[in-house]
């Protein structure tokens, strides 16, 4: 650090100048945002964003190499400015982490300054650009001449440069659409979050079958008038199975029998049925303090069979469908030339097709297990490989950092 008192903007520049510069950039960004009536940064698509980014990278690297001994350039690529920019990015992200990032009334303060879409606002874009410039300069000095001992630095900083720049500049090229498709039907229409009009995709999706697996149903004691649910004594989310015992104050329940897939029988006793039509039935014994012990069958019901609960005084005891455990769609995807691919889509198991990724997203929740509709999200992200390259470089840098960190501390200890 500097020993003698140094006036502002007297060389060598350091933190105070960096703070001024950064504050100026952020304020200028907000001013531009305001002047543009809150419209935000224009979206640039391939190939223009790639051209811009490439030019910017080459420019900052060569400026770093060419003006290696220039005090101003040294400052531009130095840690003080880097720290101030990190602080500014943190501050802007803080706004994004506190103010809900949702659409608001145009013309309101939040919209004019872009507070509700901070990550695509001018101040954010400007700060990121300066940050990339700063990072690029510092990289140029470690890249030329290339030395083995700088590998860790290069992996970290270049990795972050690539991931951040491609993630942000590539964002306008990200296509994210939801394709609703019904069993037995084919569609090639997808919807974006912003618009009601569908876009046609370069491929079509045929839905053979949608199926949903549930956890066992839950046993609930509730007041039908108020809807209040009473907590069971052990504070357990009770999943019904044969032999289950549950108790509330003055009330004991035994599950004597449980059939996960059944249909109502003639004599009041349910009969096992197949997986597609059957619904859960449980035979319970109710032992309560001020009534005789009795046994009865209850069921979750379905769109085709009525729900049946047991009356316990003024309360009801019932079973309700469990939460979804897995859901999947059997689909056939086909491109315009007739290339086909059959696949099963499931959460966490997307498939690739012609550079698109297809995800199981949702279904008709009202119908639950009987949903004939599957919502499939399709995503095209040409910048993904670049971002992942950055991620893997950072992770490689991390491993080296971890290793060297241990070694260095051993030496100093």
């Amino acid at each position, binding site marked *: *650090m500097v020993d003698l008192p140094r006036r502002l903007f007297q060389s060598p520049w350091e933190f105070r100048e960096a703070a001024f510069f950064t504050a100026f950039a952020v304020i200028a960004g907000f001013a531009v945002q305001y002047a543009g009536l809150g419209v935000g940064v224009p979206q640039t698509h391939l190939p223009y964003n790639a051209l811009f980014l490439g030019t910017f990278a080459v420019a900052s690297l060569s400026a770093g190499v060419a003006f290696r001994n220039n005090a101003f350039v040294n400052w531009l690529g130095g*840690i*003080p400015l*880097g*720290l101030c920019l*990190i*602080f500014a*990015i*943190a501050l802007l*992200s*803080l706004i*994004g*982490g*506190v*103010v*809900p*990032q*949702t659409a608001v009334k145009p013309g309101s303060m939040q919209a004019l300054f872009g507070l509700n879409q901070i*990550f695509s606002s001018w101040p954010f874009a400007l700060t990121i650009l300066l940050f990339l410039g700063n990072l690029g300069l510092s990289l140029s000095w470690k890249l030329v001449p290339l030395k083995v001992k700088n590998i860790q630095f290069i992996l970290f900083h270049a990795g972050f440069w690539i991931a951040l720049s491609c*993630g942000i500049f590539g964002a306008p090229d*990200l296509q*994210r659409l939801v394709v609703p498709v019904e069993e037995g039907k084919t569609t090639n229409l997808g919807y974006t979050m912003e618009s009601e009009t569908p876009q046609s995709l370069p491929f079509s999706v045929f839905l053979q079958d949608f199926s949903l697996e549930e*956890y066992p149903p839950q046993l609930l004691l509730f007041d039908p008038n108020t809807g209040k649910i009473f*907590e069971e004594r*052990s*504070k*357990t*989310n009770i*999943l019904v199975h044969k032999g289950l015992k549950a108790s509330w104050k003055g009330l004991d329940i035994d599950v004597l029998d449980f059939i996960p897939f059944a249909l109502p029988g003639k004599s009041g006793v349910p009969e096992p049925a197949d997986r597609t039509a059957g619904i859960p039935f449980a035979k319970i014994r109710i032992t309560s303090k001020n009534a005789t012990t009795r046994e009865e069958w209850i069921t979750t019901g379905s769109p085709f069979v009525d729900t049946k609960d047991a009356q316990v005084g003024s309360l009801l005891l019932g079973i309700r469908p*469990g*939460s*979804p*455990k*897995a*859901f999947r769609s059997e689909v056939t995807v086909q491109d315009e030339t007739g290339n086909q691919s059959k696949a099963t889509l*499931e*959460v*966490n*198991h*997307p498939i690739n097709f012609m550079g698109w*990724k297809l*995800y199981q*997203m949702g279904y008709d929740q009202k119908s639950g297990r009987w949903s004939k509709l599957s919502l499939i*999200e399709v*995503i095209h*992200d040409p910048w*993904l490989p670049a*971002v*992942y390259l950055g*991620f893997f470089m*950072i*992770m490689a840098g*991390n491993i080296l*950092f*971890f290793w060297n*960190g241990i070694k260095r*501390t051993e030496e*100093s*200890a």
Partner: protein
Amino acid sequence: MTVNFTSAAIVAMLCWAIGSLLSIFGRKTPALKAPAFVLSLGGSLVMGAFIAFYWVLLDRPPLRTLGETRLWYAALIPLVGLLVEYRWKIGWLKYYCMALAAFFLGINMLHPEVFDKTLMPALQSPWFIPHVIVYLVGYVLLAASSVTALHNVSLQMRHKNNSAGESVSHYLALLGFVLLSFGLIFGALWAKEAWGHYWTWDPKETWAFLSWLAYLGYLHAWRYKIDRAKLQWYLALSFVVLLVCWFGVNYLPSAANSVHTYSQS
């Protein structure tokens, strides 16, 4: 279930309390050192065994709710204290660590959680365990780093020289940063598989990024040879950002539309 947890927690807390007492007396009577160590370690082993037992009972990793992650925290943080003692011969950190662990168990005893075996489809992923464990261990190390930094600040105020303490807080922060970076990237890679995009500036993600930036700033300030004594303040306070990320996000106005609110409880 609650009964089992309460007894396990009480046994663990007793182990830590008696272990701490023995260790304090052990400064004069070295014969007490070994039992003190065994008891302090025993507390974590009890919690470790409870986690294993709970895992089997739940049929899923107990990493879904905040209460469940506090179990891990309670088991792991005393280990960091013991490790620092073993490695740098600094004994006081373990007391803070055991007290913090007992505090976390105390929260769980006051707010018993509903025992719930279900795990929503998005969490059924091979990424779930590595992502959460890496973060947990990272948080444990950064918590220990903050406690160390706070202790360093108090030593400075009493004008005691303490460069060993400064290198401990630095080393813990460095390790914590490495794990935080892995956690962030694992999270992004998982999000791509589960939700379709690696980064959506969701409030939870934004706060994770913020806490990562806080430590990134620390590392560069340290590199730039900013007064290391002043940086102890910075380290002590950075943990506040982490805490917001961990517990606080659920209460912020922006959290209403987070996809990660499943951890709410």
